[in-house]
């Protein structure tokens, strides 16, 4: 069967889109609702994934508990990042976030005794001792497969999307509360919010931490899906994928994120079927880069013709 018609391939696209939904939902909370320019979201994904893997392999911790620790640690990292930087002007904050994510990636690359280094988690227990952190996940997945009578791809698809859609629903509800109202007011005008008695800094910190938790949740699913990862999986480019998803879908609405993630996933995977000229002149590695060009063109086109994203409101965009 050709790839384009295979369930295995498209379920993979769907799983990755589900993981990216969680990941980009964090950016939606931070930027779409609170107006924070976080360009280091991938760091939280890395913290979630690495914390879980390290605790399972090195400390023999229960994997679920380890995953929880990963999320908690990402929240703490978000607070630690936010405390000194959230008082900075938006653009300076943005620069520190990208530096934060790069610092963590370099640390993960070089602290090989802690992280397995550039070779990734395969070396977590030491070189030559192939280590594995997702045994508990695989057995859980197996149970889901048997109970639902589905294959492992379908089971993963169901699990990822259940969690992703629950998270989208939770964020949607949260943003309808008075808490969400304050967050939006900070996005609109933080001086106005402060003049009405809202502690702007505290809310920004909470938004950053909530986005970090979502990033880490995406990170543990990423770790379960790929069974093995390395610091290069958490390059800044991944953060910008989240931004593309949020912009594609539309800002300030949680439910646009899964749609943006699916569209992004299809564009991203779809370019692999560009086997006609002129793309057929390129070999497959070169063609892998074509998708980045396509994504870039889509974003440019969107900015020109539909700056509000697929579902955003044009009316909102023109308000001053």
């Amino acid at each position, binding site marked *: 069967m050709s790839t384009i018609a295979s369930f295995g391939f498209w379920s993979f696209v769907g799983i990755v889109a589900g993981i990216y939904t969680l990941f980009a939902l964090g950016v939606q909370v931070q930027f779409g609702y609170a107006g924070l320019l976080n360009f280091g979201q991938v760091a939280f994904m890395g913290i979630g994934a690495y914390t879980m893997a390290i605790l399972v392999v090195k400390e023999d911790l229960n994997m679920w508990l380890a995953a929880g620790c990963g999320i908690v640690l990402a929240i703490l990292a978000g607070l630690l990042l936010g405390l000194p930087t959230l008082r900075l002007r938006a653009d300076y904050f943005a620069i520190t976030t990208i530096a934060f994510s790069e610092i963590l990636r370099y640390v993960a690359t070089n602290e090989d005794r802690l992280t397995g280094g550039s070779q990734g988690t395969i070396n977590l227990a030491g070189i030559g001792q192939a280590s594995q952190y997702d045994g508990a996940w695989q057995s859980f997945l197996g149970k889901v497969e048997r109970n639902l009578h589905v294959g492992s791809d379908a089971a993963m698809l169901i699990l990822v999307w259940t969690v992703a859609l629950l998270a989208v629903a939770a964020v949607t509800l949260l943003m309808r509360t008075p808490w969400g109202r304050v967050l*939006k*007011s900070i996005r609109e005008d933080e*001086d106005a919010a*402060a003049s009405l008695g809202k502690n702007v800094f505290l809310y920004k910190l909470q938004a950053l931490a909530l986005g970090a938790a979502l990033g880490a949740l995406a990170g543990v699913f990423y770790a379960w899906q790929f069974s093995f990862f390395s610091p290069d999986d958490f390059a800044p480019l991944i953060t910008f994928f989240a931004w593309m998803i949020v912009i594609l879908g539309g800002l300030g609405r949680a439910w646009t994120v899964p749609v943006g993630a699916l569209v992004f996933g299809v564009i991203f995977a779809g370019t692999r079927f560009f086997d006609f000229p002129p793309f057929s002149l390129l070999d497959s590695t070169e063609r892998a880069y074509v998708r980045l060009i396509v994504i870039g063109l889509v974003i440019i086109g969107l900015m020109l013709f539909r700056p509000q994203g697929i579902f955003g409101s044009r009316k*909102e965009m023109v308000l001053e």
Partner: protein
Amino acid sequence: MSSAILEVRDVVRTFGGLRAVDEASFHVDEGSITALIGPNGAGKSTLFNVISGFLSAERGTVQFEGRRIDRAPAHRIAQRGLVRTFQVPRALTRMSVLDNVLLAATRHPGERLNGLVLHPGRVRSRERKANERAAELLALFRLDTHAREYAGVLSGGQRKLLDFARVLMAEPRLVLLDEPMAGVNPALGRQLVEHVLRLRTETGMTFLFVEHDLDIVMEASDRVIVMNEGRVIASGTPAEVRGDQRVVDAYLGTARTT
């Protein structure tokens, strides 16, 4: 006998070499409508920003209801009941007019994550009360028909009213109005003045406002404070201030004697 609700003492604020506010001292009586006037560059807006916590004072103290607020952040000052407006109204454009007003609700348990989780009942009842109050205020300022629209579609004048409604929602005891008449048509300006006068009579709310329209100042205020070059040069009733030679000099310049 009225007592001072706001006491500003020897406040200094510089920008580089410029002493924007230079040992300014004055007080505002509780329940009064006090105007702060002075030529452009006199330091009125800077002083407003210092009082409301948006700028820090380098020296001097600010006391609100007997407690120092000169080291408090802006949001804490607002929570204590000293709420300001801005020269250009700050409508939260991509939020509904109603949400703009609801935002100003005070002591709302639903604005804290733990409150949302632990006391959903209290959140609901506070939100219901806030909605009732917001509806009253929107009706008062004739914005009720726009409640569900984005604040960004409102006209400049309507935004001024929205700003005012929002400030009242915050239950202030002292309101700082930064040029309330600027960019407002005379009819709307009239309306705003009447709201201020009525609120003072009905609720005892205190107002301190910066204004360039001296007719409004003379008509609406009980006391006038005059600033020039960062200092308070005169204060008193509108009639006293009008006859003060220093004030005339500040506005018109002194005659050159050669």
